[in-house]
């Protein structure tokens, strides 16, 4: 960060000093005075579909607008001065912490200990509560850390067995962490409303969504594309819910479909709704981000383990067989076409 700041500051001063140079260049040469930096060469081959774009770009070729010139200059100076100045150490890199790196201080700094007003508590949570402060329940952080590690272990193991992990956080602002965690753990995400019946009435709601058959390295096998029709929809093997209070329907459906769940349980939530509760503050984005990040990292570790096994030529889970894929999904018998073929 320091380097960047330095570059900007210095370049601005230097630009101010050498302001005369381009003027003289203009008088001496017939070419355009503005240098084009190497970084971006747009409009060289714009597809013919977007003619409005093209017309815009041809205009800009003839006469660059003021802001464009300014930006190009800035870019050129950035390139020139990028390597100057000091080098930074200890810069902030927004990589989520893994479960083994989590300390109570991290949890405290993220505000995971803040519960709800004492009047809103669910007495089933009494074992997670450390005390009362200013009329607010304080969640015991050592319990939080222990339960978080336990949940992370579950996520890791399920990921290592090729399970389908669904991260759900439907509050405003949880989108980024949910998508990030799903990306890390190679799982799936929900950041808008859970459509009721997506599990219990999956054919209707998720029936049109595509699935694919993959091998142990997660590469798609297109040969089976036709065999995927009329199959029951995919169901998750583990559901992580960042706001269980708003996702009662999702948790209920998980119960009906016998899917284990992990949830952040605040002092006003019901801990028996989920299989693995993580007692923590679910109203602070920092807290939910931290927990989603930890679980995402755990999932990543599990996936890496699974892929490593695949490299060694092993399945860490029971794979579907080609035979089974070629069976009729309704009758469980071989398809008619094949039967006729054999006759």
């Amino acid at each position, binding site marked *: 960060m320091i380097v960047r700041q330095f570059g900007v500051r210095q370049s601005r001063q230097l630009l101010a000093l050498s302001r005369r140079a381009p003027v003289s260049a203009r008088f001496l040469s017939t070419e355009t005075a503005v240098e084009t930096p190497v970084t*971006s060469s*747009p409009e060289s081959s714009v*597809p013919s*579909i*977007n*003619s*409005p*774009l093209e*017309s*815009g770009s041809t205009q*800009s070729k003839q006469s660059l*607008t003021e*802001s*464009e010139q*300014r*930006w190009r200059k800035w870019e050129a100076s950035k390139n020139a001065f990028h390597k100057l100045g000091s080098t930074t150490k200890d810069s902030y890199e927004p990589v989520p912490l893994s479960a083994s790196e989590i300390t109570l201080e991290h949890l405290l700094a993220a505000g995971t200990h803040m519960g709800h007003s004492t009047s809103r508590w669910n007495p089933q949570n009494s*074992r997670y509560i450390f005390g009362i402060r200013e009329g607010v329940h304080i969640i*015991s952080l*050592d319990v939080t850390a*222990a339960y978080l590690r336990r949940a992370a272990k579950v996520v890791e193991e399920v990921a290592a*067995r*090729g399970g*389908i992990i*669904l991260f759900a956080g439907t509050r405003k602002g949880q989108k980024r962490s949910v*998508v990030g965690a799903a*990306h890390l753990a190679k799982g*799936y*995400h*929900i950041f808008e409303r859970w*459509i009721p019946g997506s599990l219990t009435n999956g054919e209707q709601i*998720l029936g049109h*969504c*595509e*699935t*694919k*058959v*993959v*091998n*142990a390295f*997660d*590469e798609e*096998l297109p040969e*089976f594309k036709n065999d*995927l029709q009329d*199959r029951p929809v*995919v169901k998750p093997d583990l559901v992580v819910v960042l706001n269980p209070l708003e996702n009662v329907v999702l948790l209920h459906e998980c119960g009906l479909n016998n899917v284990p769940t992990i949830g952040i349980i605040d002092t006003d939530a019901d801990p028996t709704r989920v299989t693995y509760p993580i007692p923590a503050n679910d109203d602070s984005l920092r807290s939910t981000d931290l927990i989603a990040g930890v679980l995402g990292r755990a999932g990543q570790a599990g996936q890496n383990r699974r892929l490593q*096994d*695949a490299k060694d*030529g*092993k*399945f*860490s*889970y*029971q*794979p*579907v*067989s*080609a*035979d089974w*894929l070629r069976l009729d999904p309704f009758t469980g018998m071989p398809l008619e076409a094949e039967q006729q073929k054999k006759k």
Partner: protein
Amino acid sequence: MARHAPNGIVQAMQLLRLQGTPYRRVIPSLRPTARFYATETEPQTPSTEALPEQTAEPQLEVRPAPEINFAKFQQRPARIVPASRAYFSGNPRFIDHVLNLEHLQQKYASLPQVPAGEAPRMAWFKLAQFRDFVGEAVPVKKYRSLLKLLQQLNRIEPGIAPQEVRTAISVFLRPGNPYAKEHTPREVDENGCARAKGKRKTSTAVVQLVEGEGEVLVNGRSIVDVFPRVDDREKALWALRSTERIDKYNVWVRVHGGGSTGQAEAITLAIGRALMLHEPGLKPVLRKAGAITVDARRVERKKPGHVKARKMPTWVKR
């Protein structure tokens, strides 16, 4: 914040629980941590069975794909997984598009942008077209948010906008370019006839105006027949009367739809517009006279639960 050791009752409960459930292993460390199934599934048999039949009929034009060797680890199916990370949301393709655009927006947030009015005009998909494009029932509100994203990306300075952004945006454009054809101003044709159209309520009037001595034909009849009321006649010819040109032009009108008021006022508008083609200098006069001002009011639709558009049924005690 010491760790809380379970007390005697808890331990007893735990023991009971552990012994009560027959499936739970008490000592997990004795079990291997992960099972491997590589030896459990043999190389698939149907491939070897099907092979001779295929060789028997090689003269067929449509040949099946070469048989897969499932013995190879690479080609053995392992899992059925959703194609998109947003599978469980119900509209995965749409959400993937949104996430992609948001990613681009974040990536190029530092690029200079032009004001909203100066960005190149783009013909994005209409909602129905977009639904066909993604193959999902996308709600209106969500599509609007996507359009907002597209417009923001479109506002990046056209000369600088990276190729990545251009290609990502161009996916959402309607085929053809509706904004390409230029608007040609209307003029008086070679016969000295000016055509114009006017609308009011549900009536539409098309007027042809030529220089002449003040004859008016509405739908082939004289104006007195069509509009028996003086008021309507006055209204219909107001554009000519207010500029004192009633005896200098011949008017030929075709009007349909609506009632007499609507038709008369539609004719006013149409004549005003046609007159402006003949004499553009009259515009301020016509504007002031109200002859070229469009009245865009239409009948408000009736609502369920109402008697008319807004009227509620009268309250009845019982």
